[in-house]
């Protein structure tokens, strides 16, 4: 009986280790594919009230991306240390400006950036350097990056959020957006929104 308990104890220790290694912060997922839902990932609600308003979030600790008040959410996985992301920053800013200057799209399509392995300090450097107006979130411990399959950067994911709160991935691809107008057209096509924001 003692022997069985001993073996059981050993097994329990190993099982506990395995479970601990696969907690959300450690678990590695696959890049989300079109038609799937976004892997469960939590971000801190921004301190900046402008960003909170943009995302339609009230004050709080954390939120999940599909809670953002939008029809389409474009997520850029980036790093301030990534030369391609640095080169891509003006294109993403153009995309943001195109959306925000179109009264039919403003409020319906929103953009966020997640800095893989970047601290708040590093994300702020990127924000200031490239004058990024949409919210950027630090992902210092790679928690979100792991959930989306440790993708190379930049990587863009777009979600369509339905009125009932459900969502699905409509775009998931490595590499920059390059031409903002073409990328916006693609987002409209994939989300079945028209340029006036109707659907």
């Amino acid at each position: 009986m003692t022997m069985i308990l001993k073996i059981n104890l050993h097994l329990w220790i190993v099982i506990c280790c395995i479970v601990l290694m696969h907690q959300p912060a450690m678990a590695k997922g696959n890049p989300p594919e079109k038609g799937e839902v976004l892997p469960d990932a939590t971000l801190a609600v921004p301190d900046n009230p402008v960003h909170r308003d943009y995302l339609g979030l009230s004050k709080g600790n954390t939120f999940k991306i599909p809670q953002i008040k939008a029809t389409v959410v474009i997520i850029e996985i980036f790093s301030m240390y990534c030369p391609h992301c640095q080169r891509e920053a003006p294109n993403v800013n153009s995309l943001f400006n195109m959306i925000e200057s179109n009264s039919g799209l403003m409020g319906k399509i929103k953009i966020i950036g997640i800095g893989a392995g970047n601290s708040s300090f590093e994300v702020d450097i990127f924000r200031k350097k490239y004058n990024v107006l949409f919210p950027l979130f630090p992902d210092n411990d790679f928690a979100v990056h792991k959930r989306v399959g440790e993708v190379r950067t930049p990587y863009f994911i777009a979600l369509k959020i339905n009125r009932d709160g459900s969502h699905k991935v409509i775009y998931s691809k490595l590499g920059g957006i390059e031409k903002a107008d073409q990328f916006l057209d693609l987002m409209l096509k994939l989300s079945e929104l028209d340029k006036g924001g109707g659907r």
Partner: protein
Amino acid sequence: MKRLIFLILLVLITGYGFVTTAFGRSEAFKGNIYNPGVLKPRDSAPKLKVGHKAPDFSLPALNGERVSLQQYSGKKNVVISFVPAAWTPVCSDQWPGYNIVRDIFDAHETIILGITVDNIPSLYAWTNQMGKLWFHVLSDFWPHGAVADKFGVLRSDGTSERALFVIDKKGIIRYIDVHDINKRPSLEVLVKELKKLQK
């Protein structure tokens, strides 16, 4: 019991792999980054301490010049950034970050000397992926790793540690970080050290 310890170690090592494989993922390098896996965090014996005079050296730079530490004496503070090798994960994800914060280094009258044990052609091809670097990249290829050895950061396999030395205008070492080779040093910590130089 031995078997149990082995199993636990196996689980932990596998998990450690998850933690440390996420660097060097910029699409700028495409699939050209060689992943050496998780390395011994440190593999050299220190030779220098904070407060020591930094040993002088002269190395060939990518732009064809020869650059010595002495030439900055009385003019600029110097951050020496040793990185282990070109075309490896964390290294490829370190200097591009320094490249967008020239203003911070300028504000603290500091220049960077980036040093690896690679030869000039390899450094040329590698750093071209990072965009135009504003700081000197020096080759410590021949005599192989001689400068890294002087600074006590030459590893037993001929690569260098991932190390930062902050040297003031008088040539005195003010900060040393021989970092875990598998991880990128915090930019925030380095900037704090630059701020201390002015005191």
